[in-house]
């Protein structure tokens, strides 16, 4: 079936560097995407979202890029900090649907 997936299960980043987390999706009908962060022992927390009529959206230290041509989504974290260590999930949804479909997640580890 159609699904959302992440390219790499793990990512190790030096503190202060920028992080890029990638996600490929296959459902061409999806028009809304979300990035979640899950810290150990907690539920996923919303980071940023983007609709398919946009290519880029920025938040505080985070940027989401959407390339609909190749069905690719990425999350960029600027000046990565130890508190950014977590599992990151991308999720997609068709605008009219209630439910989200999640990828397998990327575990980000920040090296001091």
């Amino acid at each position, binding site marked *: 079936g159609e699904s959302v997936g992440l390219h790499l*299960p793990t990512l190790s980043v030096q503190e202060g560097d920028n992080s890029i987390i990638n996600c490929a999706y296959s459902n061409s009908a999806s028009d809304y995407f979300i990035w979640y962060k899950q810290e150990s022992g907690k*539920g*996923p*927390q*919303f980071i940023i979202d983007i609709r398919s009529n946009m290519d880029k959206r920025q938040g505080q230290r985070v940027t989401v890029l959407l390339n609909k041509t190749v069905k690719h989504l990425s999350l960029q974290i600027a000046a990565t900090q130890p508190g950014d260590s977590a599992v990151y999930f991308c999720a997609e949804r068709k605008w009219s649907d*209630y439910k*989200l479909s999640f990828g397998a997640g990327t575990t980000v580890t920040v090296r001091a």
Partner: protein
Amino acid sequence: DVKVTQSSRYLVKRTGEKVFLECVQDMDHENMFWYRQDPGLGLRLIYFSYDVKMKEKGDIPEGYSVSREKKERFSLILESASTNQTSMYLCASRPLDRDYGYTFGSGTRLTVV
């Protein structure tokens, strides 16, 4: 802040037991969801409810049922627990009119022995 509370952080149950996982949200959200989370598989939707007494199957409903008698409470029921239902269970809610309003609980880690 919206709060989604799952009644237990850790549960250990025996094979064949009937198990109830409870979830309560305090912000009058219409939609509620139950996901399970397994390593390498991400989050998979078990059931969701778009309003009181309404429910729909998600992607993996087999072996589960749900109950939503009140708007704030969404219960997941394992009719006869099996070892392959050992997992992390996450409840989420969202209001009808806000796309980014998926708020998750902290999860219940269930072990079936």
